[in-house]
């Protein structure tokens, strides 16, 4: 280095360095250019570049430039050296970051390469740091062939060259790293499992990674340059893709950028598959470049679809189970309802049957009415009353029942104090008038107040707590005979359709029973009157004799006829006693009984002969065209005397009378027997005779005493005989009472046939009967 460059020369060097560096794209080229330009400017035979090894912190030889091969010995030394900060010239620059020089290598003990340098004819060296804003990068050095101190211009040029080279190496480093990064990114992209497709702003493919090749079925080379939309987007989505891309290019509106989208991808073979797409802009370069990251989510979709199907199946299964539960509940509810209906029907049937039995137990008119209202409480209503229409048109409550005995009294007080108005617009009066059933529900306190006739009436109504009423007419073929009124209040119940039906049935039965009871009562009265007319009102008093009788009709009290007896005075000191049994029952039997009784009464006054009188009765019956019936008759003529009673008798088909001796023996008097009376024309009757000694008793009886329903045909007669035998010497009255009692007991209290008994006992000496014994 022999001369310093001028400022102008310095500018020219700077320009040459800029031009040279602009063409240098590698460290080697840049170093070559800078070392060459500076060495030529400084007339230096050798320049070298030392770069900082950031890992070791040492400066290592990187490149040199020399004018001739005679310097090679020194050049070969450089690569074998490394300088730590502060060591030698190079290490000193590294440490101070300032340019430095060695004026004469031969005299500088601190220059490690002095021997080699001197050997190739080099005496001086100047060095400058390569400092950039990023920091220290290295050192450049230039040797001279003469010992000398560098000029200011030389120092300026070396320093400038160091800065420019440092800056350029910095740029080269950035570019190198960028390039390395891009290569790395490209490698990653191509190795990625996801599809990575880049495109430009026109939508043409810039890159297409291996995953994209496999997913879409295109070669990378074929895909690059094609429109992305035409390549991998199904036709129906292309337009929206183009619009989104255009919107971004036009006004940077990021319609889809950065969003995760799920859509369909189109394969080269035309098939589609679900993909997840994220689009992003790469860097900020203009025009923009976009990268699309796509993932084939077919498997995921399939899994999701399977999960969805399983979930739906589970939900549907649950719904079906719930529906099955609804059906089961419904079936159970219907079964319970059916059971409840059946139970109610059974209860109704049982109630009606019981009510019918209760009503049937008695044909007594008053008793039937009471039974009817009692049967309805509390099963049907809280209280029930029965109103009848009397012949005079008045309405009368004849029976009433309440679930509460105290209220029942109150109800009676009510109906007695406030008789029903036959013209009333509702209630029993209306039902009886119209024959229609009436239901009044939800009777309000206001309605009660409005209906009250006076304060007392109101008080009774309020205390009776009437909420719902139902009045049913009692209809018979002859018309409406009354009404049943049902009231609900205290129980809180209402009349249900079932109740109305039940009440209708009950009312119909009640009407029938009431009607029957009425008829039965009337018929019983007639029958009793008629029956009484067929027997003597009183037995006669027969001197020297006791007379006692019993009559016990069998079965229905409405039936008249059957057995009969009579005892009467038929002449001077002569009495007649008759016991008979007419076939059949009813009006015709009663007529025959009357005929027999009155014929024999009349005949006994005309003839003494019992057989003649029976023959007379036989003819009378046969001549009576009104009857085909017949009868049995025991006709006895009694003549009491001092030594007893002379008895003449004739038996027309009747059980033989029994004679009870004083010693207790019993004798059937079989004499005087003849045929049935009224059965055969010209029948002949016999006469028998006997004398009742004092104390002896003659019992006349009908077959109802001995005909017992048993296989032991002789039982009744044996019991009769033993009863008589046990009562030897007893009064006539005592005997007939015992016979009647034993006969009834023998037939379990209900004789199946009439029983008639007539006992005549001859009084003991010194005693005599003076009265009568009623039947």
């Amino acid at each position, binding site marked *: 280095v022999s001369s310093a460059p001028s400022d102008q020369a310095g500018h020219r060097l700077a320009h040459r360095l800029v031009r040279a560096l602009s063409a240098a794209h590698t460290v080697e080229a840049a170093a070559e250019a800078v070392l060459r330009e500076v060495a030529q400017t400084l007339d230096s035979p050798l320049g070298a570049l030392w770069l900082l090894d950031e890992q070791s912190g040492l400066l290592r030889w990187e490149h040199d430039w020399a004018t001739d091969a005679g310097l090679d010995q020194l050049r070969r030394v450089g690569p074998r050296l490394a300088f730590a900060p502060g060591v030698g010239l190079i290490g000193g620059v590294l440490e101070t970051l300032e340019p430095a020089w060695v004026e004469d290598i031969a005299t500088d003990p601190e220059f490690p390469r002095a021997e080699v340098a001197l050997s190739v004819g080099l005496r001086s060296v100047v060095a400058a740091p390569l400092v950039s804003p990023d920091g220290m990068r290295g050192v450049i050095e230039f040797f001279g062939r003469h010992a000398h101190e560098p000029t200011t211009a030389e120092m300026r040029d070396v320093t400038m060259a160091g800065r420019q080279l440092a800056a350029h190496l910095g740029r080269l480093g950035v570019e190198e790293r960028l390039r390395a990064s891009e290569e790395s990114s490209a490698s990653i992209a191509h190795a990625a499992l996801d599809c990575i497709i880049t495109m430009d702003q026109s939508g043409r493919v810039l890159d297409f990674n291996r995953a994209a090749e496999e997913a879409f079925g295109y070669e990378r080379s074929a895909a690059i340059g094609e429109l992305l939309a035409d390549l991998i987007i199904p036709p129906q989505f292309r337009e929206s893709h183009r619009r989104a891309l255009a919107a971004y290019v036009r006004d940077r509106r990021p319609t889809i950028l950065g969003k995760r989208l799920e859509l369909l991808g189109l394969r080269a073979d035309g098939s589609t598959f679900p993909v997840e797409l994220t689009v992003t802009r790469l860097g900020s370069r203009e025009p923009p470049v976009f990268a699309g990251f796509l993932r084939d989510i077919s498997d995921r979709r399939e899994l999701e679809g399977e999960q969805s199907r399983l979930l*739906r199946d589970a939900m549907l299964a649950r719904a079906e189970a719930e*529906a099955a539960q609804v059906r089961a509940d419904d079936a159970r509810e*219907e079964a319970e309802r059916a059971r409840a209906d059946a139970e109610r029907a059974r209860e109704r049937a049982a109630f009606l049957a019981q009510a019918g039995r209760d009503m049937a137990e008695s044909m007594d008119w008053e008793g039937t009415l009471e039974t009817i209202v009692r049967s309805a409480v509390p099963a049907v209503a809280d209280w029930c009353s029965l109103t009848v229409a009397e012949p005079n048109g008045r309405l009368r409550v004849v029976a009433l029942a309440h679930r509460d005995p105290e209220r029942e009294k109150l109800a009676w007080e009510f109906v007695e104090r406030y008789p029903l108005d036959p013209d009333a617009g509702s209630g029993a009066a209306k039902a009886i008038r119209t024959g229609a059933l009436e239901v009044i529900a939800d009777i309000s306190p206001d309605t009660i107040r409005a209906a009250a006739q006076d304060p007392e009436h109101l008080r009774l109504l309020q205390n009776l707590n009437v909420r719902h009423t139902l009045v049913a007419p009692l209809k018979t073929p002859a018309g409406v005979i009354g009404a049943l009124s049902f009231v609900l209040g205290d129980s809180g119940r209402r009349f249900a359709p079932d109740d109305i039906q039940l009440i209708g049935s009950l009312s119909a039965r009640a009407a029938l029973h009431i009607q029957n009871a009425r008829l039965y009562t009337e018929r019983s009265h007639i029958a009793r009157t008629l029956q009484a007319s067929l027997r003597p009102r009183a037995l006669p008093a027969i001197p020297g004799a006791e007379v006692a009788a019993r009559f016990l009709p069998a079965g229905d009290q409405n039936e008249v006829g059957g057995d009969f007896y009579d005892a009467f005075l038929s002449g001077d000191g002569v009495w007649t006693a008759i016991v008979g049994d007419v076939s059949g029952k009813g009006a015709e039997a009663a007529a025959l009984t009357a005929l027999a009784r009155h014929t024999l009464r009349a005949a006994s006054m005309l003839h003494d002969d019992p057989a003649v009188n029976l023959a007379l009765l036989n003819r009378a019956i046969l001549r009576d065209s009104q009857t085909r019936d017949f009868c049995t008759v025991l006709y006895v003529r009694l003549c009491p005397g001092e030594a007893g009673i002379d008895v003449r008798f004739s038996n027309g088909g009747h059980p033989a009378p029994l004679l009870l001796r004083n010693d207790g023996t019993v004798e059937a008097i079989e004499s005087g027997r003849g045929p049935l009376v009224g059965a055969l024309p010209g029948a002949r009757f016999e006469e028998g005779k006997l004398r009742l000694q004092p104390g002896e008793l003659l019992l006349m009886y009908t077959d109802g005493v001995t005909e017992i329903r048993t296989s032991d045909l002789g039982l009744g007669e044996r019991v009769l005989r033993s009863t008589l035998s046990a009562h030897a010497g007893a009064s006539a009255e005592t005997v007939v009472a015992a016979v009647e009692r034993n006969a009834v007991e023998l037939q379990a209290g209900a004789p199946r046939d009439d029983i008639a008994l007539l006992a005549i006992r001859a009084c003991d000496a010194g005693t005599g009967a003076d009265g009568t014994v009623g039947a």
Partner: protein
Amino acid sequence: VSVDWRKARIAKNEASFRDINERLEQGLRQVRDLPDALQFVCECGDRECRALISLSIGEYRAVRRDSRRFAVVPGHAIPDAERVVQGNERYEVVEKIGGAVEIADSSDQRAPGPRGRRSDEAAP
């Protein structure tokens, strides 16, 4: 008695099946990727019916716009209790008549209270 027991039972069953389908539809709303046709329980009043019907979500919601209406398998309408107002080969829509309307209205969970929804009313 406003409606006889049988018709009331039919209406009650249909309302119960509607409730079941409502819960099913609410659940299906949470499921991704529903197919076009979904299966629901036949809402007919026949206790023995175990059939399923196929409706889209839209079709199902259209039925639910009227409290009186139920979706049933074609032919499952009960003539004296309801009338068919629309239908296709997959399902029929029946509309309750008479006293059963009150039951259908009062039991509709989408329209709490005694008044039900009517299809000709504006959506809330």
